């Protein structure tokens, strides 16, 4: 149990020494993506092989160094899940991709024992071998600060976090700074909340600090519900102690001694990593009463969500922690005055807390040197959809949309043509080709009618129908509407009904205007952010792709060919030889005809599954 600052410094130097003594390190990615690809099997196999070959290996950093060992560790998510399972080899910094269990022997014998690089396991970019992570174009254009530890350190070990200087920002704040100084530092850095709104973090903390109430809380929002976003998941899995450290600093300067982490239940791995991190920190005395011999006490608890998107909203989230239905309430009073259990509460999201230790350690000037003046720092984005490199990225705020999609993301997948990108999830907007030069920061996006949201970027190509995308998001929002206020509950339902009508070819003249009118009303009168922003995908797709809506309504045609109800499959009588092959593939017996005469598809029966198309030897069947 650490009792003083000296104790902490001592233990840190002890572990730093052991870390240094590990002559080689194998970091197996144990993020959700790589685990799904079998990385834990690989981890066990590597460990087993090293034991068989009597290679001294260490799973956890020990206090005493007896002899140099090979460290084998489970790291957090590298962010490039598509090429997983990933293994990082230190000290060379090599990255092996798509590693399989069968490759383990070669990795041990060649790389670990002889330091030989295995070319076939390296990432290849157009035939060029990228040995190191930073050689890969996907990483080259990124600036990883918040994600700097993800994939680089053992995510399950507090010892390793300490060894690389972890908790030094907390140490500095605790022993060298007053509460005002901490707030001053955060305020002057210009850090804005990464959860979507972009509210200045320092101002929020200051408001909580000012409250006279003796009981205050720090709450971390890990309810990353936007479909297509997983920045916070990766941070919680890959660098859990950094999140804890940010929360502890917030508690210290705001006068709170209890913190809550609210994590969605769909992230079981993040929950277990955070749980372990809290246990480790409590065990060595970085959490608990009278931390490091000071008067500061801080305790942390984890609450798991239960599948309600609306709980990402502040007042709904605190209601859920209190054990109630997660429904937003009217504001004011605001969370900083009457938050969790009606007490003053600091509520920030995971990525925001993960920035705190960086600012305390590196200073205001450093932070402000990254990104534009009004939105300094970096932002993590989840890059997904029909793009070559899907994954988690971090770039300076203000990087343009085009740079993100084409330089980091590698452009469109399967030769598709870039059509649009949905930013900020179901409550965000859609950006198109004309926005490729738009800098991604809070203010520029707001001006363009979108929002940064939590940072999901879903890239769409010419095969994605924008009306269908709007319907998809409205369906999501409608499902997740809590039902408390009428505009959102009924308005989303009506908007969804109209969109469903349009994509199934039943749209009528005037539907677009009706949608826009409803959108206006719902946005102006809903109680919380979910309703206020629910119509954004509709408004921005109509603004950018009005002709697609019109084609569905007037011509009963889907220009992208995505809406199945508007598809028609026909047999070209001139090409059909009546061979009967197609009839066997039809699951609903919609195709009939006389052998050797042209066959026909009964459109009333046809479910447009397209199963018949590839069966025709004469290419007579096609979608029209």
């Amino acid at each position: 149990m650490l009792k003083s600052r000296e104790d902490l410094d001592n233990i840190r130097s002890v572990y730093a020494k052991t870390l240094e003594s590990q002559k080689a390190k194998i970091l197996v990615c144990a993020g959700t993506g790589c685990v799904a690809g079998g990385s834990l099997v690989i981890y066990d196999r590597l460990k087993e092989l090293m034991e068989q070959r009597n290679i001294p290996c260490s799973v956890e950093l020990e206090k005493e160094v007896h002899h140099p060992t090979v460290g084998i560790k489970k790291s957090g998510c590298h962010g490039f899940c598509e090429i997983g399972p990933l293994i990082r080899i230190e000290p060379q910094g090599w990255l092996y991709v798509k590693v399989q269990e069968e490759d383990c022997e070669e990795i041990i014998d060649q790389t670990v024992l002889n330091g030989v690089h295995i070319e076939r396991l390296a990432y290849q970019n157009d035939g060029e071998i990228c040995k190191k992570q930073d050689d890969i174009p996907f990483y080259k254009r990124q600036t990883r600060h918040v994600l700097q530890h993800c994939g680089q350190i053992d995510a399950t070990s507090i010892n390793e976090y300490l060894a690389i200087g972890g908790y030094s920002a907390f140490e500095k704040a605790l022993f060298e700074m007053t509460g005002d100084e901490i707030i001053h530092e955060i305020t002057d850095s210009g850090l804005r909340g990464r959860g979507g709104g972009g509210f200045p973090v320092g101002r929020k903390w200051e408001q909580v600090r000012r409250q006279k109430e003796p009981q205050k809380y720090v709450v971390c929002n890990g309810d990353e519900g936007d479909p297509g976003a997983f920045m916070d998941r990766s941070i919680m899995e890959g660098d859990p102690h950094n999140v804890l450290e940010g929360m502890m600093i917030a508690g210290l300067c705001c006068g709170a001694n209890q913190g809550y982490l609210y994590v969605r239940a769909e992230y079981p791995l993040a929950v277990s990593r955070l749980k372990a991190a809290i246990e480790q920190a409590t065990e060595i005395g970085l959490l608990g009463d009278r931390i490091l011999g000071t008067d500061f006490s801080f305790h942390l608890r984890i609450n798991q969500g239960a599948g309600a998107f609306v709980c990402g909203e502040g007042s709904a989230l605190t209601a859920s922690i209190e054990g109630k239905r997660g429904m937003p309430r009217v504001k004011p009073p605001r969370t900083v005055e009457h938050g969790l259990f009606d007490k003053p509460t600091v509520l920030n999201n995971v990525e925001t807390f993960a920035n705190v230790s960086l600012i305390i350690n590196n200073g205001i000037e450093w932070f402000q040197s990254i990104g534009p003046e009004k939105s300094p720092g970096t932002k993590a984005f989840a890059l997904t959809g029909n793009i070559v490199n899907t994954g988690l990225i971090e770039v300076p705020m203000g990087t343009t949309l085009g740079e993100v999609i084409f330089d980091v993301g590698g452009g469109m997948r399967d030769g598709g043509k870039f059509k649009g990108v949905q930013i900020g999830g179901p409550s965000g907007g859609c950006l198109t080709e004309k926005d490729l030069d738009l800098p991604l920061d809070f203010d520029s996006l707001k001006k363009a009618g979108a929002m940064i949201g939590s940072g999901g970027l879903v890239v769409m190509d010419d095969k994605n129908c924008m009306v269908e995308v709007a319907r998809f998001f409205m369906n999501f929002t409608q499902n997740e509407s809590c039902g408390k206020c009428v505009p959102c509950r009924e308005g989303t339902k009506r908007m969804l009904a109209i969109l469903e009508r349009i994509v199934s070819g039943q749209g009528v003249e005037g539907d677009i205007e009706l949608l826009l009118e409803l959108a206006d009303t719902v946005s102006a009168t809903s109680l919380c952010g979910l309703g206020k922003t629910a119509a954004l995908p509709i408004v921005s797709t109509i603004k950018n792709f009005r002709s697609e809506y019109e084609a569905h309504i007037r011509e009963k045609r889907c220009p992208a060919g995505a809406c199945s109800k508007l598809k028609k499959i026909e047999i070209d009588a001139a090409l059909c030889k009546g061979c009967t092959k197609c009839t066997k593939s039809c699951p609903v017996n919609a195709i009939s005809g006389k052998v050797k005469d042209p066959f026909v598809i009964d459109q009333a029966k046809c479910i447009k599954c397209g199963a018949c198309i590839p069966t025709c030897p004469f290419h007579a069947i096609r979608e029209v």
Partner: protein
Amino acid sequence: MENTFDYETIDEIIEEFGPKASSVIAILQGVQEKYRYLPQEIFPYLVKRLGVSEASIYSVATFYENFSLEPKGKYVIKVCDGTACHVRRSIPILERLRSELKLSEDIKTTEDLNFTLETVSCLGACGLAPVLTVNDKVYPAMTPDKASQLLQQIKEELLNA
């Protein structure tokens, strides 16, 4: 019915999170993990133990998507229909599984209580889209055919068990 229900298990769960109103969600999660759904017997019992009304516990149980008042299947398959999976065609996978299991949007669990088929908004594994999970194990880069194979594999496991 009350005589046959094992309240000791429930007590253990209550002890873990503390018998207080703010633990309702955590306790219900614990119960659901154990039984794969919320048996109706627990409601009057939790009223006694936690001192909150049955209506308020029921309101929590019905508000959150993850709670089920109906028994779920031995294998819970969740097809991710988050944005990233959706644009990479997750719906054909869902449709294939629905037709093979003879389930629909309204009927989510097979009669033999072997399978429950649901959708989930996002599992955060977007890099591997489209994904599905079977009892929380993630299966990446799925196609309708791969999903059929997986289903066949599980059915064989069930037969051999």
